[in-house]
């Protein structure tokens, strides 16, 4: 049983030169922010380290942080420029019974995060869902396809982005009723 602070120290000492941050001001759970291009290494470390043993990935969620510049379009809709998209990892150790939340934020224009699907197989479908819904690209994922939306859904159209607009037509069918 370890606290988030201790795990944070472990990561920090294990990966010198990698930006990690701890935000403990959240009301319910502290979050460790990590570099999106080092996620795989850190996760592997967290899984295999004797003091951490995070053997299960409870949840992986893609989130549009919507913290960029909001630009009004002519038709009164908004698009967001800049800012980040984040991936939240909720890890849990069944043997040591402690939990931790990681966050990897990638720039909105080129959201690339390393895939962790060979650390925990559970990440496979979750990452596909995050890709499908938020457009986060997981590097080294073996089979990054859309999962919930149709395979031929318009490229670059990701429903869970805050500035998502319904396409007018899908395969010749009118989309908004």
């Amino acid at each position: 049983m370890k606290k988030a602070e201790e795990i944070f120290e472990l990561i920090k000492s294990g990966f010198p030169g990698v930006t990690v941050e701890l935000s403990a001001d959240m009301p319910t759970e502290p979050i460790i922010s990590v570099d999106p291009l080092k996620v795989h290494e850190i996760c592997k470390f967290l899984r295999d380290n004797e003091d951490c043993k995070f053997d299960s990935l409870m949840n992986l969620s893609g989130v549009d942080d919507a913290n960029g510049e909001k630009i009004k379009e002519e038709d009164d809709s908004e698009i967001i420029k800049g800012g980040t998209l984040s991936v939240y990892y909720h890890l849990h150790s069944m043997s040591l019974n402690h939990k931790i939340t990681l966050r990897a934020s990638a720039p909105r224009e080129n959201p690339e995060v390393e895939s962790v699907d060979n650390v925990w197989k559970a990440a496979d479908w979750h990452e596909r869902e995050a890709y499908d819904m938020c457009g986060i690209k997981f590097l080294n994922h073996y089979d990054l396809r859309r999962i919930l939306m149709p395979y031929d859904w318009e490229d670059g159209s990701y429903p869970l982005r805050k500035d998502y607009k319904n396409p007018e037509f899908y395969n010749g069918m009118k989309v908004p009723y």
Partner: protein
Amino acid sequence: MALRTEELILNVGPQHPSTHGVLRLEVELEGELVVKVKPHIGYLHRCFEKHAEAMTYPQVIPYTDRMDYLASMYNNFGYVIAVEKLMGIEVPERVEYIRVIMGELQRIASHMVALGTYGLDLGAFTPFLYLFRDREKILTMFEMTCGARLLYNYMWVGGLSHDLHPDFVRLAREFIQYFRPNIVELNNLLTYNKIFIERTAHIGILPADTAINYGITGPMLRASGVNWDLRKNDTYSIYNRFDFDIPVGQGHMGTVGDCWDRYYVRVLEMEQSMRILEQALDQLPEGDINSALPKRIKPPVGTVYQRVENPKGELGYFIISDGSLNPFRVKVRGPSFVNLSVINELSRGHLIADLIAILGSIDIVLGEIDR
């Protein structure tokens, strides 16, 4: 000269009697042997998470009903305690008890459907209807409490929509008395049936480490021999007050983690749920259920991940609040979604009939997979 052969690609679903909804499995077959299974999901996708962003917190509750529609009560349960955790609300004792009672009744009802349809997948029609007959009694109790039979919207943030019906406690006790012998009947009719055992033992074995790596939870994980139940191991609500056991797969008929174990763990869990019910009904305190209802549900900025032991496994709600009336992001970790992802691993090298048996033993609900 070797004969050139080619695998047969068979599309099981989206319209198929035993995919339990609109699931499509792209199966590569070598004769009747399964070489590879590729699940395609999303036929029931309603983008619940996008809807949730445009709704206020209480308005999301009816949407949670529609995910795992066989365990709506439990979906409500998980969501409301997540929001309560975010807001720091303490609910009255009576509310906690009623939630547990409803949750456990729902677990029994959900397992009934799981076991019944499993029999159906293997060609035994009768147990299915026997179990539906008994499930009817639970639904009647739900109906007299909140007016709905499938989608309840019963649990509210900080309280409940209605107090229990005066007859409820009596009916619940009667149900327990009535249902105990019926489990024995089910066991005699289906569980220990020779053909049933032949069909399910040693089929689709899921080793414990694979299960953990895939994030498998619920009865499926327990059938693999892992003693893990969130009600005990990461307790929430008032589950730490009750005395109950966690049934674990022991490979009575075959290998630990086979289809028979997954089936039997559910049978045993119904008994444990009834034990919890009995204790909860005995201890049920009086009180006002609405005393903790907040005037306005507006959680502070923050994130919460709350998981509960849904009948099918770990149901997690990840809620990000930006301090407004609407949730900024609601992500649901559905147990069926994660549990289904292991199907290729389980069914490789089995016959096509076993694929159906394996799929049935996972107990999926497409409403939750596709959300």
